[in-house]
């Protein structure tokens, strides 16, 4: 629930109007003055229709230097950002040889496994690289299943708390290839309104009917379920083959958990299946890192299918699905991502195995437990400090993702560029990845951040926030100096 000042909403709408107007004027002038250049494609259909790329050309390209910045080192707590310059007003960007060392508040490096780790990378991953080579070069059903893949699937099943699991090489492909294998025409998918693009693509590709319920609103979900079950399939009014409700563990643009107990209760009442996408929450939340089910106290047997990715907390790549033995057996025979796609690279599998063992404590040390407490303390400290300074920060307690609301679109490049000039790398997010009026800067806290890093980041953000004017809420009186002396 975002509370924005009314005046800010008005000015944001006005600024969008002005930008659109200028964009259309530029298009008009381009058509009038450059009409000779546009007409040399006689008989060929255009690659994109004139209006489709309007947003990219006229709005996104103007602030292109704030997005997709290249880096020159591993994305640890501090990393090297490559400097870029542009000679034609951000239409094209040129890289230079120079890099700046910046504090990394943008990588999904929740437990700090993104850089070299003494247990994971040396010697285990390098040993598996020498033994199994970089890629298996075949699909899982051909020659792509090694001992490591089987070990990781068993480990994932044990970690998540389900009977069996299946592994894929890419997290996005997990969602977009599994959902069509689970449900088809004649089925109903009810997904949260803020679900990730991979789920939307998978749902569209499945051919099932899609309905959306209001974000995290279990009573609206119940309303939608009742209405759909009563009406049945469109045009035929027959009962649905199956109904799957898809939700995420942590929503990466809001930083808040899903209301899992209420939603599971509604689904059980109406006998709908549940699909939980724990891309950001597995390994990062929960007392022992087992995700939102542990955090919110839900039994994993109540969720039918649990999906997750190994990219964020485990420092590897790929995704998994954990469910009952029958579902996993069925998926192994039908899912194209298992039958035809190349299997996950063995060193990446070993990295996931090692990091999971560290989190579980099976490497013989308590580094896993220390990392989990570190990220929880870091997140809570950072969020409470930001809120005291007057920023509007979203997200629940214990969540390592905190978006800071910016609203006005001109504040996006202002905030981003000013922070970069002070050696703080922050990701800013604009439309269409968030709703139009709710542009934000998103911070991802990591267990690799020390308290000094966070205090430095808070100082920079406070200064830049004053310059840009995003302290929308009244400031509380406890200042940063008092916090520094109280934590020493």
């Amino acid at each position, binding site marked *: *629930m*975002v*509370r*924005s*000042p*009314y*005046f800010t*909403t*008005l000015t944001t*709408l*006005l600024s*969008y*109007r002005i930008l659109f107007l200028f964009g259309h004027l530029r298009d008009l002038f381009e058509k009038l003055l450059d009409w000779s250049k546009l007409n040399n494609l006689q008989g060929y259909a255009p690659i*994109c*229709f004139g*209006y*489709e*790329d*309007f*947003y*990219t050309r006229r709005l996104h390209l103007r602030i292109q230097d704030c997005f997709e910045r290249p880096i020159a080192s591993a994305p640890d707590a501090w990393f090297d950002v490559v400097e870029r310059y542009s000679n034609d007003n951000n239409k094209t960007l040129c890289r230079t040889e120079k890099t700046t060392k910046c504090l990394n508040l943008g990588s999904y490096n929740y437990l700090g496994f993104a850089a070299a780790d003494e247990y994971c990378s040396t010697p285990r991953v390098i040993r598996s690289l020498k033994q199994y080579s970089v890629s298996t070069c075949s699909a899982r059903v051909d020659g792509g299943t090694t001992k490591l893949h089987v070990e990781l699937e068993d480990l994932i099943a044990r970690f998540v708390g389900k009977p069996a699991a299946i592994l894929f090489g890419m997290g996005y492909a997990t969602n977009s290839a599994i959902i069509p294998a689970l449900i088809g025409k004649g089925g109903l998918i009810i997904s949260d*309104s*803020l679900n990730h*693009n991979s789920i939307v693509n998978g749902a569209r590709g499945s051919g099932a009917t899609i309905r*959306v*319920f*209001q*974000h995290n609103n279990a009573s609206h979900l119940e309303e939608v379920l009742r209405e759909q079950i009563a009406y049945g399939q469109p045009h035929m009014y027959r009962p649905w083959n199956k109904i799957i409700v898809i939700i995420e563990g942590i929503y990466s643009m809001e930083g808040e958990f899903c209301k899992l107990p209420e939603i599971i209760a509604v689904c059980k009442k109406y006998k709908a299946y549940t699909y939980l996408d724990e891309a950001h929450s597995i390994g990062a939340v929960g007392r022992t890192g087992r995700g939102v089910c542990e955090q919110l106290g839900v039994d994993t047997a109540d969720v039918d299918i649990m999906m997750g990715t190994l990219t964020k907390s485990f420092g590897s790549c790929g995704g998994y699905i954990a469910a009952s033995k029958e579902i996993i057996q069925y998926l192994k025979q039908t899912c194209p991502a298992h039958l035809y796609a190349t299997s996950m690279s063995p060193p990446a599998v070993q990295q996931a195995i090692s990091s999971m063992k560290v989190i579980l404590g099976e490497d013989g040390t308590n580094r896993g437990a220390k990392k989990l407490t570190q990220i929880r303390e870091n997140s809570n400290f950072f969020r409470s400090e930001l809120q005291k300074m007057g920023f509007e920060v979203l997200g629940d307690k214990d969540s390592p993702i905190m978006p800071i609301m910016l609203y006005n679109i001109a504040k996006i490049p202002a905030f981003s560029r000013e922070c970069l000039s002070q050696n703080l790398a922050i990701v800013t997010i604009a*439309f*269409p990845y968030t*709703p*139009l*009026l*709710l542009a934000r800067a998103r911070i991802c806290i990591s267990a690799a951040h020390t308290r000094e890093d966070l205090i430095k980041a808070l100082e920079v953000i406070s200064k830049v926030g004053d310059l840009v004017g995003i302290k929308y809420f*009244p400031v509380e009186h406890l200042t940063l100096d008092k916090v520094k002396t109280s934590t020493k």
Partner: protein
Amino acid sequence: MGKLYVEAKPSVDLNKNTEWFMYPGVWTTYIAILFVSWLLVLSVFGCTPGAAWTVVNLFHFAVTYHFFHWKKGTPFAEDQGIYNALTWWEQMDNGKQLTRNRKFLTAVPVVLYLIASHTTDYQQPMLILNTLAVFVLVVAKFPNMHKVRIFGINAGN
């Protein structure tokens, strides 16, 4: 205004081209833009208030007709072109007719017409132009005109 806060609830509308219209403050911004443009026309041209309202009315007709009823599709490619045959007006509220937003947007040209014709004292050349503008706009917003293309105008891709 002090610190007046509004809640911005994310709406269920999947079409990103129209979901921004559900947020608080949109109607106020629309009316504010019309009023400020009237003041601008008055200060730039130094004409009578009635002539200024006529200019605003005609500009409003041109701009809203172009963006609401002529331009089809959405300005981004992520929705894979499922709305490419629909104008913005037809995409609004997922095609549902007679919602609050649609009623408001139909009322605005009518109110503008009343103000413009009243301040010009119903004199001739302005009256015809204003009436034509409001007639075209209101007819284009009728529920029966949903997806109708007269004589095939604007039907092509």
